[in-house]
């Protein structure tokens, strides 16, 4: 299933969903059901060159002779009962992405071919669906049932398949026959720029076969190397890989159900079985999972993906099972089986080589493993940013001296961090509890730049019986946003034995200058509490 299998036959199925807007897709379907009763043609219009022109249309509208690009005024003249919708490009993109997500069940290599196509690299997964023809029928039937007009083709190269879908539906090209398949098609099917197509028509080259009959140097000289490459790929002479929506997971295991499952017990049992299979598959390569994704494919086409990260490569099925149990149990918006899941897939999206370690004798290794497993479980439940460790920073500014980082990624770094050594025999210099935002307090000091004698914090007055300071902390001018004042920190103890860390913001009469002859009082802040 690797995208880079060269030599073996690489096939591409291109699916074109022609019903554009999600709005029209729904109404289109409704229209079809009572088509015999009243046929009201539907078009989607977009503003192009200062005129409303038809952007997409349904079969009924096409039967009236309307075409894409026709101005809306003309279309209304031809067919007055026309039903018109505005184009909604965001909804189109969303719909195409939803279809692509649904297509994940056929192959992990699905690429978007905007605005209305999908490319599926089906190399190596055809046998799972009973052959190419059966697979294409499966895709088309499911999409048609949802009200989309589908045109599909399977060919050796992506460009060839895409070219075919623009004019034919259901063509499966035998390897080596690509050139014969595309030669009778008009040049517009190639999907090149409008100017190139016009140029080709003016030169009298109407079909792809006509273009192919010219020498490559002539075409390159007139239309550029890009068009030549496109032509070569359409003819099956060269190929470019498709760019899938998501990176290919390292290992995938999945379980399909003939009857959709809805009960939690079956879902969790399936997940644990899949976890065992995944672990077995990974252990053959000596790998462990760092990121796991469980995908739940609902029968109605909705896909729910749940990701779980781990701090250490996981090699045990039970651990994976427990992580998903934690994650599923704590989802804000719980897994909704609706009419049931018909496919559950577990993939290891990121893996790492596992280095086997001596476990029985070395207690530290055991402790470290246990701790990171605990952190993984808590993280799976409450989120990575809520489980934290600390890293020292090289700065004197108290609130920046410590960096709080997620424990899952930084546990090893934090356990090796070197913290500044404390002075032996000295009482604590820094408070144990630090306020994220220093709180403004009212202070009475004997002299403006002296220690406080009395202060009011949170509506309680504290009389200072012991004060130590100041400890002057200058702000870092090289990264100051705006003007920050130098702080003078004081450690103070009140009459009840409570100990605080206060600071005066700004140097009196140097940073805090008198304005218009009025003395400006410095601000005081409560920054922390000592034990």
């Amino acid at each position: 299933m690797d995208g880079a299998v060269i030599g073996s036959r690489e096939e591409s199925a291109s699916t074109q969903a022609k019903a554009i807007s999600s709005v029209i897709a729904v109404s289109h379907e409704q229209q079809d059901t009572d088509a015999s009763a009243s046929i009201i043609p539907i078009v989607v219009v977009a503003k192009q060159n200062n005129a409303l022109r038809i952007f997409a249309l349904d079969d009924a509208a096409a039967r009236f002779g309307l075409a894409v690009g026709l101005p809306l005024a003309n279309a209304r003249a031809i067919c007055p009962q026309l039903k018109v919708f505005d184009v909604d490009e965001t909804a189109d993109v969303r719909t195409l992405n939803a279809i692509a997500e649904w297509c994940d069940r056929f192959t992990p290599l699905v690429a978007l071919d905007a605005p209305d196509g999908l490319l599926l690299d089906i190399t190596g997964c055809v046998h799972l669906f009973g052959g190419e023809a059966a697979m294409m029928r499966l895709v088309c039937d499911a999409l048609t049932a949802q009200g989309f007009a589908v045109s599909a083709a399977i060919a050796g190269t992506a460009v060839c398949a895409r070219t075919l879908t623009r004019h034919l539906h259901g063509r499966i090209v035998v390897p080596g026959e690509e050139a014969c398949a595309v030669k009778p098609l008009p040049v517009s099917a190639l999907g090149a720029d409008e100017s190139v197509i016009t140029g080709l028509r003016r030169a009298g080259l109407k079909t792809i076969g006509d273009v192919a009959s010219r020498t490559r140097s002539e075409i390159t000289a007139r239309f550029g190397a890009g068009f030549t490459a496109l032509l070569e790929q359409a003819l099956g002479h060269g190929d470019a890989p498709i760019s899938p929506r998501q990176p290919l997971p390292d290992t995938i295991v999945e379980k399909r159900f003939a009857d959709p499952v809805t009960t939690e017990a079956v879902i969790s049992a399936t997940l644990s079985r899949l976890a065992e299979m995944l672990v077995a598959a990974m252990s053959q390569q000596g790998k462990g999972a760092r990121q796991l994704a469980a995908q739940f494919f609902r029968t109605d086409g909705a896909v729910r993906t749940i990701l779980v990260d781990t701090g250490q490569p996981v090699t045990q099925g039970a651990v994976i099972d427990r992580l998903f149990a934690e994650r599923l149990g704590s989802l804000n918006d719980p897994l909704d089986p609706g009419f049931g899941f018909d496919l559950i897939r577990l993939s290891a999206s990121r893996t790492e080589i596992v280095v086997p370690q001596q476990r029985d004798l070395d207690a530290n290794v055991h402790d470290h493993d246990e701790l990171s497993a605990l952190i993984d479980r808590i993280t799976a439940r409450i989120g990575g940013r809520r489980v934290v460790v600390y890293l020292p920073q090289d700065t004197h500014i108290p609130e920046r001296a410590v960096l709080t980082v997620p424990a899952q990624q930084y546990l090893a770094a934090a356990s090796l961090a070197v913290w500044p050594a404390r002075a032996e025999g000295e009482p604590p210099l820094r408070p144990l509890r630090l306020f994220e935002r220093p709180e403004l307090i009212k202070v009475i000091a004997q002299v403006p730049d002296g220690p406080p004698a009395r202060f009011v914090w949170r509506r309680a007055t504290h009389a200072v019986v012991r004060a130590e300071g100041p400890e002057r902390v200058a702000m870092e001018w090289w990264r100051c946003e705006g003007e920050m004042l130098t702080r003078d920190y004081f450690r103070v103890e009140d009459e009840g034995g409570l100990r605080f860390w206060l600071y005066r913001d700004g140097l009196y009469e140097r940073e805090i200058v008198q304005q218009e002859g009025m003395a400006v009082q410095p601000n005081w802040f409560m920054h922390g509490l000592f034990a």
Partner: protein
Amino acid sequence: MTGARMHLLTTLRGDIARIETSGGASTPDRVALGHAEADATLRGGLARGAIHEVFAEAGRHSAAATGFVAGLARRVAARRPLLWVRQDFSDIETGALSMSGWAELGLDPCLLVTVRAADLDTALRTAADALACDALGAVVLDVWGRSRQLDLVASRKLTLAAQASGVTGLLLRVAAEPAPSTAETRWIVRAAHAPPPSAGSAWGAPVFEAQLVRNRHGPVGRWIMEWKCDECLFAKPVNQPTSDPQPVAAAPVHRPHPARARRAG
């Protein structure tokens, strides 16, 4: 009293003893705090694999209680990792744990993992999970205010988890009142005056007034303890009067201004 009734009583006593010690477990592993009198009262120190509660009655004693819990955790966990579970709300109310201050107390920030729980239910569940993990030295559950969730059932769950794994659980309850629980010991901590060690300095090491109000297997007591940041143990303060456990510094006395008093007279 007949022989049958005596026999029944003996059986019942045996049952109760078995329930109390949860299936005949041996005497718990104890860690000395360093304070001789407190250790004697606790029969050798703080029991491992149990729950201990530390209360700070008013919010203003929160930092002292935090320091006391940090000290207990250091004594119990030694060089093993410590998990500190706290609520988001507690950060705003009492300030977040500062690692600079943590290191200044002689503790190692490398061994600390903090969990910030959004609500108490999550915090309780996380603490129960963590208590079951024997790689940890201690688990601290830092809860602000009164709470209905932290009842006898929750406390029993934590105790069972702690007993099974041998990890010590420390409950830090700020601005809460003691309620029935299955804790091994219960402390009420207040800040005490910390006189400077010498005339040359103006600041001393942290001093706590720790009141042991519940001890499942012994008497209670009340001591002034000083945390020795260098040795990482509790001790009796050197220059604190031993007979009087109350804070020493007297409240400032109101004295009328001499000049004003003269004028009035």
